[in-house]
């Protein structure tokens, strides 16, 4: 394999799940199904519509080890660097997708289950939902993940239950040689349950390349509410491909925040929400701030299957240096989905001549009594605003980071956790300063 590109290896040579994982596993049939689906779908090329602006072959041309057995270790000291100051949370630590109970603070609340997904394979709820999300069915990397994932988290919140503070899930990735890591998570909130999740990531090894192919399935049963923050800031030698696929039943509320910050070389997020019950609320907020040679691609899909649902999407991008951004936002309003409110907006700030953004909204509306809108803007700094700030004694660097924070304000203002808000503002300040001083 070392001679071959990994792209070719997974296209042609990768062995099926029965070779690699415990054959007794209760979800083995689902893995096998996914593997044959993966074989049928094949890997995307630049001709594949959804991958036109992200040349995934380029990021898979190196040789990787398919990390399934590799445990990896991490110390408490390393984890402490991934902390968010003043954040009061239950910390959950994963290494290469595997839960580290010794480094985690698993809440002792009988109503909330947090375990390895491998340990929960016998759970009938898990079996019922695993790999069932409709949008995963057409995604080759999601199929590859289902077939061959190493491990991940299973989180289940009982009906009417909640936690007193957020879960902070710290994903750490470490490998001695180039590794292709596939975590798999499932979050299930039963009726009227609520939860706040903050995911953040920590890359530990700068010498080997890690390619992380994550799938997270979220199920919100009737009247459940999930605040879901995803903070993507890791090391340069990492590439991240993720699928987050959420199913919302009636009256449920899903608030998703995606923050993509430096310095992963490539980030591709596929976020899809299927609205299967009426009177739901969906808020998708995204902020991507990319520097250097970063490539950040966000694909979102809101699927209005039934009537009387509200979705609201705002993605904002700040592109510095040679960074490249992609935004594709799809809203599908089915014929039966009358009285839908669906709004989408993507605004971008280009801070360098060489930065680039490709944005395409895609609205498919088959119902006639709906309110839908979309918009896209790309702009540069207002020179007048910059001069105004500088004329008050504020240096160029501080003035620019003030303006970027102001641009991001619509998103950061929606964050309900003050410690996370402060953390983001400080990160934005650091990265803007770093790019200016570069």
């Amino acid at each position: 394999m070392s001679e071959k590109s990994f792209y070719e290896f997974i296209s042609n040579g990768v062995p099926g799940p029965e070779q690699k994982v415990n054959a007794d596993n209760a979800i083995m049939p689902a893995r096998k199904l996914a593997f044959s689906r993966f074989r049928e779908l094949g890997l995307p090329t630049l001709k594949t519509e959804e991958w036109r602006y992200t040349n995934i072959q380029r990021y898979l041309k190196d040789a990787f080890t398919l990390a399934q057995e590799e445990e990896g270790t991490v110390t408490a000291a390393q984890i402490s660097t991934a902390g968010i100051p003043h954040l009061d949370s239950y910390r959950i630590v994963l290494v290469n997708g595997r839960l580290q109970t010794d480094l985690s603070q698993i809440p002792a609340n009988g109503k909330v289950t947090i375990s390895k997904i491998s340990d929960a394979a016998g759970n009938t709820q898990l079996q019922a939902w695993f790999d069932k999300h409709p949008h995963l069915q057409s995604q080759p990397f999601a199929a590859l993940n289902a077939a061959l994932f190493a491990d991940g988290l299973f989180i289940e919140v009982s009906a009417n239950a909640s936690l007193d503070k957020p879960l902070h899930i710290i994903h750490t990735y470490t490998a001695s040689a180039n590794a292709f890591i596939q975590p798999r998570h499932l979050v299930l909130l039963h009726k009227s349950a609520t939860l706040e999740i903050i995911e953040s990531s920590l890359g530990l090894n700068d010498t080997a390349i890690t390619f992380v192919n994550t799938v997270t399935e979220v199920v919100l049963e009737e009247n459940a509410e999930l605040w879901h923050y995803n903070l993507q800031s890791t090391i340069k030698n990492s590439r991240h491909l993720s699928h987050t696929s959420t199913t919302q039943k009636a009256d449920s509320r899903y608030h998703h925040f995606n923050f993509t910050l430096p310095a992963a070389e490539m980030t591709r997020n596929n976020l899809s929400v299927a609205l299967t019950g009426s009177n739901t609320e969906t808020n998708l907020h995204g902020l991507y701030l990319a520097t250097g040679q970063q490539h950040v691609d966000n694909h979102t899909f809101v699927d209005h299957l039934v009537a009387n649902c509200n979705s609201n999407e705002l993605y904002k991008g700040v592109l510095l240096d040679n960074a490249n951004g992609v935004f594709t936002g799809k809203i599908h309003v089915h014929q039966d989905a009358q009285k839908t409110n669906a709004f989408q907006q993507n605004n971008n700030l280009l801070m360098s001549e060489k930065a680039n953004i490709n944005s395409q909204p895609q609205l498919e509306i088959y119902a006639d009594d709906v309110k839908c809108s979309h918009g896209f803007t790309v702009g540069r700094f207002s020179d007048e605003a910059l001069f105004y700030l500088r004329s008050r004694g504020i240096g160029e660097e501080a003035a620019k980071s003030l303006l970027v924070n102001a641009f991001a304000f619509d998103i950061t203002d929606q964050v309900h956790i003050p410690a996370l808000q402060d953390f983001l503002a400080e990160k934005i300040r650091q990265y803007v300063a770093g790019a200016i001083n570069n």
Partner: protein
Amino acid sequence: MLTIKNLHAEVDGKQILKGINLEIKRGEMHAIMGPNGSGKSSLSSVLAGRENYTVTQGEVLFDGKDLLEMSPEDRAREGLFLAFQYPVEIPGVSNLHFLKTALNEIRTYHNLPALESKEFLKLTKEKQQLVDFNANLMNRSLNEGFSGGEKKRNEVFQLAMLDPKLAILDETDSGLDIDALRIVASGVNKLRSADKAFVVITHYQRLLEYIVPDFVHVLYNGQIVKTGTKELALELEEKGYDWLKEEVHQKESV
């Protein structure tokens, strides 16, 4: 405090300032008047360091230092303040956060420690009352949705907070009704002191009824063509600028 010698400047290749000479001392209040397009706002822009202006000749010394060599932020840190004719709206930056950042950058430049939140708030309250600025506007985004008068009053509030040595007010009276004009003028008057200087740029004599200048300069065609005392402003109000223009053209033809 400020010495302008033979200042020439252009914008987009067009000569706008054609040899300005002006000396401003501590404690003085100067008014600059003149018809549209005479270069009044250009002079304030060049002094504050707006980037699209190019100085082609001359020099400006600010307490002995070469002002034109400095970045806009360093000019401000050295004690120059420009009240904008059109203050900029910046959504997402709160007025207070902006002022705190500005104040602390200026303090850092002078090797002073940053103000504690408590001290900052105390100062804010004091200055807000001094210039009669609406406290409700302080927590809002900078100038966003402010009326014309509120924006101008915010400029005077910033002036009070940053406490510069030299303040240039660029048509601060434009767009103000008479009540707002009085409040703005009274704010400026309270800030006058023996160690500070002001330059008030205006079209109309009206403002100068409230802010009484020591000197009145008339700018025309990029040069100061006449300097007098407050009586000159009254004369201009009465007679307009045409007689001055004629005087200048007669001189030129001689």
